[in-house]
């Protein structure tokens, strides 16, 4: 255990936690994106929307081995812990950085490799605010204009008919895209997943992952906004 503590005490160890909790979150984001594509399917013969069937499946996943919504709550708990670790590590590391250079330069030129790397911290804050809004919007319904519990397809369509709601989600997805681009690449770097033969694939993978998530999440709302999906 003392070695684990040694790792955690170091700045590298805190980054490892950042990377591992981040990996849990980008796994979630990817599955969430794939799930949302159910919005593109028309209702079946009985009038059930694919999205509603999928939502029901998520609630019943694992039943009767576990109670209704059992696995769902375990997943929520894991995600909450991952978000918590991600935020705590980010705050700790940001404070260390500030302490390491309390006084900046009079003339500063950024030599960072990407815009995304410089916006990780504020991008993260935007994403946190978005997640809170998103849960109030589609899970508990307080931020929704006419929320009906269980009618996921309907709630989705009603929400994205508003250009304002669409705009909020568009900005959040943009922030997520940048966050993922630097995050996915950083994941490899921080965990030392580096090899001269494969390193040139890490950037394209990060770009690809970020773009797939961006396009995948925004396709259904865009089609709702223009009236193709209703």
């Amino acid at each position, binding site marked *: 255990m*003392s*070695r*684990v503590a*040694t*790792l955690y*005490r*170091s*700045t*590298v*160890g*805190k*980054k*490892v936690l950042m990377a591992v909790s981040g990996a849990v979150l980008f796994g979630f984001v990817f599955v969430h994106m794939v799930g949302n594509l159910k919005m593109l399917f028309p209702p079946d013969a009985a009038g059930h929307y694919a999205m509603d069937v999928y939502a029901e499946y998520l609630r019943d996943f694992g039943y009767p081995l576990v109670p209704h919504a059992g696995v769902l709550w375990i997943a929520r708990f894991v995600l909450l812990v991952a978000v918590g670790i991600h935020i705590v590590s980010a705050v700790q*590391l940001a404070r*260390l*950085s500030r*302490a*390491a*250079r*309390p*006084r*900046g*330069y*009079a*003339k*500063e*030129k*950024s*030599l*960072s*490799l*990407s815009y995304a*790397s*410089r916006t*990780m911290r504020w991008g993260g804050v935007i994403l946190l605010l978005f997640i809170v809004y998103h849960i109030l919007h589609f899970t508990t319904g307080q931020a929704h204009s006419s929320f009906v519990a269980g009618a996921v397809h309907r709630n989705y369509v009603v929400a994205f008919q508003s250009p304002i709601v669409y705009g909020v989600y568009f900005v959040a997805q943009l922030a997520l895209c940048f966050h993922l681009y*630097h995050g996915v*690449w*950083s994941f*490899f*770097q*921080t*965990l*030392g*997943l*580096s090899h*001269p033969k494969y*390193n040139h694939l890490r950037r394209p993978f990060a770009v690809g992952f970020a773009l797939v998530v961006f396009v995948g999440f925004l396709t259904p709302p865009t089609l709702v906004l223009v009236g193709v999906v209703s």
Partner: protein
Amino acid sequence: MKLTLHVWRQSGPNDVGRHERYEADDVSEHMSFLEMLDVVNERLTERGEEPIAFEHDCREGICGTCGMMINGVPHGPKSMTTACQLHMRSFRDGDEIWIEPWRATAFPVLKDLVVDRAGFDRIIASGGYVTVRTGSAPDGNAMPVPKDDADAAFDAATCIGCGACVAACPNASAMLFTSAKVAHLAALPQGQTERWDRVLGMVETHDAEGFGNCTNHGACETACPKGISIDYIAQLNRDLIRATLNAKPVGNGTRG
């Protein structure tokens, strides 16, 4: 050419410091940046003012002694070039140049542009060595080293310890320096005995010195006059994770 300089002046570690404006006339484009400062200092001395303190030694770009922020970039605008090897032809007549010391808690300013980089020495002292048999010199090539490993070790060993990576890093992290020193010895068979102790000790000292954490910006790699790759940082991370999580015996193991 005529230049306007804004130079950080600070009489000692406890002085608050300020930017002073100097007009540098008759600068030749063939001068190195340090020679330009020499000329400015000569004028200052003639006027009875305190010359600008800056560090320099070999002026050949190989010792790592010189280094200053020039218009917000460590060692100035030319890539893979130390301040002493930067020539004034990289600037234009009438340019304004801001010259500042490295800024980091772990690099306290001693005077003007001179910072105390003893933190680097302490990082080296906590692991940057190998144990060798003393006595007669070993036979050449008695210990075979694969070419790729030798090249990787040599690329890391070109680090001159100037501190530009720390100066450029938004987090004032010295991970590029530390990783170059760790990777240089970890790549070679001679460095295996202390491999895990080395990475533990050097990262521990790195953190204790007050350097920041690496957030993978890559600014250090851009600023490095020797072009050290951030791939070495990934290697350091991997070695540290292995040293702490694996059950491997850790050298003579004072830690963990």
